[in-house]
């Protein structure tokens, strides 16, 4: 039988020619992984709704053209963009500034990295063959993911952040991603965070960019958390209103380690945030929360995979989506419990608040359980603000919009509560209040 091949879309053809011209500049050590990644991508193409994992987020339809990878901007342009960025500015942190996907040393606090932490720009690490690079892509399933593989193929810049064993780092690192430009561009960044045994570390990510430009960021954060280490991660998507924003965080969890990750989404005409957790060591815990507040015409997708491969892992996932106008929310969550992972305790929940009749929410929970002594559950809810609660608040004197805002804040607040860094938590609450004010 003859091979049946899909017709390639303009964007797919464009990506192939962009990769062709980029490959000249690859250093030989990195060439292999990039070539492999792109080969995978070429075989699958941009995933359409026919691909199960992308059923509700059709990237083939959404990405019409392959945007050019953004060049490193001049310092002047980078400064102007960074100065205009406001996310998390009030938080005392060590900042690493990325403009259009390139680390800008002059706008980063590379000289005041906290004790116990080493930060190496990714380009430097790649040219020196840094041994930490071997820890990239710590979760195997990402090899089957076209977004992740596209990031590997086009990887332009990033950083390696390594925290020594036993170091308890109080000062967070803020990865500040800022996009700027008048025409569409794409970025591909990779940050690797490794925590030594018993270390504790917090980092924040903020993503901002211009409205009205269909730019295409594709950002990956890989994390490797050694035994007994504790990682706190807070992410804010405030991308521009036409951005197609793709992002992935992976975590390989050692024995007794812990990760807390919260992602708050406002921006992008389409966003997809992917979370890959691999419970490699016994008794590791993960709390992964997310909230999306979506105005007219937007789509936000949160896709999670929790792979329990060791005894006694605990995973808690809570996703909150606020739908306004005709926007769409997507949550796909999969918990795998391997045969060895007895006593796994996994709970996954997705709640949606519909503020209009025109929006929609897609929930797809999946459990694959091969062990016999586990507690795993999932739940999903979807509904309008509770009329009785609104009446109760109004009967105390709150006008309807104020009462509704209070209920929305409370709804989203549950997902934000787990942020341990007080400044970051307050900043996220401030972002939610800002969204509600803008909604009027």
């Amino acid at each position, binding site marked *: 039988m003859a091979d049946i091949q899909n017709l390639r879309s303009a964007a797919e053809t464009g990506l192939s020619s962009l990769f062709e011209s980029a490959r000249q500049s690859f250093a030989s050590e990195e060439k292999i992984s990039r070539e492999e990644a792109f080969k995978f991508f070429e075989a699958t193409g941009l995933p359409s709704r026919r691909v199960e994992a992308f059923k509700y987020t059709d990237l083939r339809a959404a990405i019409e053209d392959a945007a050019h990878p953004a060049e490193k901007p001049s310092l002047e342009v980078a400064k102007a963009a960074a100065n205009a960025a406001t996310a998390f500015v009030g938080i005392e942190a060590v900042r690493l500034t990325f403009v259009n996907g390139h680390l800008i040393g002059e706008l980063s606090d590379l000289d005041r990295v906290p004790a116990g932490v080493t930060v190496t720009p990714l380009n430097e690490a790649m040219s020196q063959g840094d041994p930490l690079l071997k820890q990239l892509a710590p979760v195997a399933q990402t090899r089957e993911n076209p977004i992740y593989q596209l990031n590997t193929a086009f990887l332009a810049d990033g950083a390696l952040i390594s925290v020594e064993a036993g170091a308890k780092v109080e000062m967070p690192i803020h990865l500040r991603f800022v996009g700027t430009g008048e025409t569409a561009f794409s970025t591909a960044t990779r940050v690797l965070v490794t925590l030594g045994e018993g270390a504790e570390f917090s980092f924040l990510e903020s993503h901002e960019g211009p409205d009205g430009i269909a730019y295409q960021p594709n950002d990956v954060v890989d994390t490797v958390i050694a035994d007994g280490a504790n990682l706190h991660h807070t992410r804010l998507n405030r991308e521009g209103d036409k951005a197609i924003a793709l992002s992935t965080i992976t975590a390989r969890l050692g024995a007794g380690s812990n990760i807390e990750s919260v992602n708050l989404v406002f921006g992008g005409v389409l966003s997809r945030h992917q979370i890959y957790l691999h419970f490699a060591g016994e008794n590791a815990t993960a709390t992964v929360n997310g909230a999306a507040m979506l105005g007219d015409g937007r789509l936000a997708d949160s896709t999670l995979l929790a792979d329990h491969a060791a005894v006694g892992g605990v995973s808690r996932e809570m996703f909150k989506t606020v739908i306004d106008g005709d926007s769409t929310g997507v949550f796909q969550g999969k918990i795998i419990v391997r045969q060895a992972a007895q006593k796994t305790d996994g709970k996954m929940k997705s709640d949606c608040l519909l503020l209009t009749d025109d929006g929609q929410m897609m929930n797809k929970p999946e459990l694959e359980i091969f062990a016999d002594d586990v507690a795993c559950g999932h739940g999903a809810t979807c509904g309008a603000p509770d009329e009785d609660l609104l009446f109760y*608040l109004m*009967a105390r004197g709150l006008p309807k919009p104020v009462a509704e805002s209070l209920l929305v804040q*409370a709804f989203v607040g549950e997902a934000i509560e787990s942020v341990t860094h007080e400044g970051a938590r307050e900043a996220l609450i401030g972002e939610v209040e800002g969204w509600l004010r803008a909604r009027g």
Partner: protein
Amino acid sequence: MLEIKNLVVQIEDNRILNGLNLTVNDGEVAAIMGPNGSGKSTLSYVIAGKADYEVLDGEILLDGNNVLDMSPDERAAAGLFLAFQYPLEIPGVGTMTFLKACINAQRRTRGEGEISTPDFIRKVNAAADKLEIEKDMLKRALNVGFSGGEKKRMEILQMALLEPKFCVLDETDSGLDIDALRIVSEGVNALRAQGRSFLVITHYQRLLDHIVPDTVHVMSKGLIVKTGGKELALELEKSGYADYRSEAA
């Protein structure tokens, strides 16, 4: 103070109030008693402005202004307060945040400035102490995980802070033990004043031992069928509602 004239109300084609008339004077504590299904809770919700009820006829005048033309928040700002029979739990909304938002919303609607934080905290602490509300409760989400008695005390706390003109207490005694009943009643009695009136809705006479009413109205089948002094409550306790079930028919 409050005048209800010929109030006719239905919910989903069920007529609940059938031309009810009631007047509560300035500073008066009026009690409404009546059997289950007589329309007592409906009356309280209609006064507060719940949307599920359809008002077919009549007026509810607070100081001469028809509150039926107002939204629930406007009624609250005008001085109406309903202490709910079943106060709702609102996860994620901190009690203090809620209290401050309510006070300020009412002040704004009345064209007054916002309350200062120190003043607010002082007021809340003083009112909470009187109602034996522990500080820990104020730090929690509104009514979440509160016992029935704690929720009712929280209602009275809100009433004390919002300083309404006209308070409706919808079966505030239900779910209260003897001690909680005493605390809640003392809280209400402390608020009795010229310029403030109460409508106390209850099944049982025991609440009226603590909150002694000036007038007692018996309600049956959506109408006030008898009005008397506080002794009427004692009579009802002895004879039951049997005499009144047929009267409205």
